[in-house]
């Protein structure tokens, strides 16, 4: 009898334990954000990563907004609140927005993350880590000399439909996004 009770107890404990483990996994899966989708999860990319970002997954036909910025760039910091608003307003309308930081890798925790938290930024942020940025700059746009900030909007076919060097004029960018996502605001 005692032996049977013991076996039953072990079995019950195993059942409950595995159930709890499954429950915990599900909870983690629901709350864990995919890489690049969290303010604190900034993925480093190199030139190849930048190419993949801009060449796009063929299955992703959303218009793509890319903003090149850095915490050392005061124009970038000044325009960021407008970009956060644009992200909030257009993400549900089908705009994919990725911010590419040109900060130093060692500044991710001390400068980049605190800034993004202050901005309440929700868009994916990646950091371009290339010792020589020239090829990356010219890959993005052959006319670009590296002026920061720089903003590019690609339509669903991957064509550049808007680009701006220096601080954006929000109304101009919004107008371009409206056309790209096919909405009027």
């Amino acid at each position, binding site marked *: 009898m005692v032996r049977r009770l013991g076996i039953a107890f072990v079995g019950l404990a195993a059942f409950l334990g595995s159930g709890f483990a499954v429950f915990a996994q599900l909870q983690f899966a629901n709350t864990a954000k995919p890489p690049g989708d969290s303010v604190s999860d900034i993925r480093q990319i190199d030139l190849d990563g930048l190419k993949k970002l801009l060449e796009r997954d063929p299955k992703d036909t959303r218009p793509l907004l890319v903003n*090149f910025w*850095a915490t*050392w*760039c*005061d*124009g970038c910091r000044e325009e960021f609140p407008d970009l956060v608003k644009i992200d909030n307003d257009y993400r549900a309308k089908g705009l994919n927005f990725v911010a590419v930081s*040109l900060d*130093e890798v060692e500044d991710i925790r001390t400068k980049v993350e605190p800034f993004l938290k202050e901005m309440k930024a929700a868009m994916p942020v990646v950091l371009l880590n290339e*010792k*020589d*940025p*020239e090829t990356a*700059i*010219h890959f993005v*746009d052959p*006319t*670009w*000399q*590296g*002026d*920061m*900030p720089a903003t590019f909007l690609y339509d669903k076919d991957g064509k550049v439909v808007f*680009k*701006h*060097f*220096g*601080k954006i004029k929000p109304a101009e960018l919004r107008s371009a996004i409206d056309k790209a996502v096919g909405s009027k605001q």
Partner: protein
Amino acid sequence: MRKQYAFTVILAVSLIIAFTAIAGSGRNDDNALMAPPIGSTIDDFKLPDADGASHSLSSLRGKNGAVLIFIATRCPISNGYNERMEKLSQDYKAKGITVIGINSNVTEPVSEVKSHALEKHLTFTILKDDGNKIADRLGAGHTPEAYVLDANNKLVYHGRIDNSLKIENVTSNDLRDALDELLAGKPVSKTGGAAFGCSIKRAS
């Protein structure tokens, strides 16, 4: 007849104004800046220094050429190159090439340009480009951004100083290489290079 004549004059004047505006804006329709092509001759210009004294490019240019570098007082990237720019100036002054700094930022007053140069020990001439006229003419977009002119004001290089703000990561000294080739009488093999920098804060 008079009406036709008046219309023609008005149309011609409008076209001239429009052409001048486009040509002087330094930007194309995509908002990208238009720099003079390599090989073009840069017209002489005059700008004041931080003390208000006016200087012409021709008076400052060395016997073998000049390096114009658009710089800033508040841009961390431009400031990260302060020592390198000063060393460049010292190294090439003796070789007949003058480094000339140009500050076109509307947000940086001339008093700040002067105090910044003193604080950072920059001894080369720094000119204040109010209204960013020279920045527009040369299509300069950010700091630091360098232009090398030969003894006849021909543009032989336009671009970055080197490939990295961190000295330990510098593998390509593009500006120095261009100057050395110029001094050796050789064609400049790499006439430009891109690097990230702070946009020039323009008045217009």
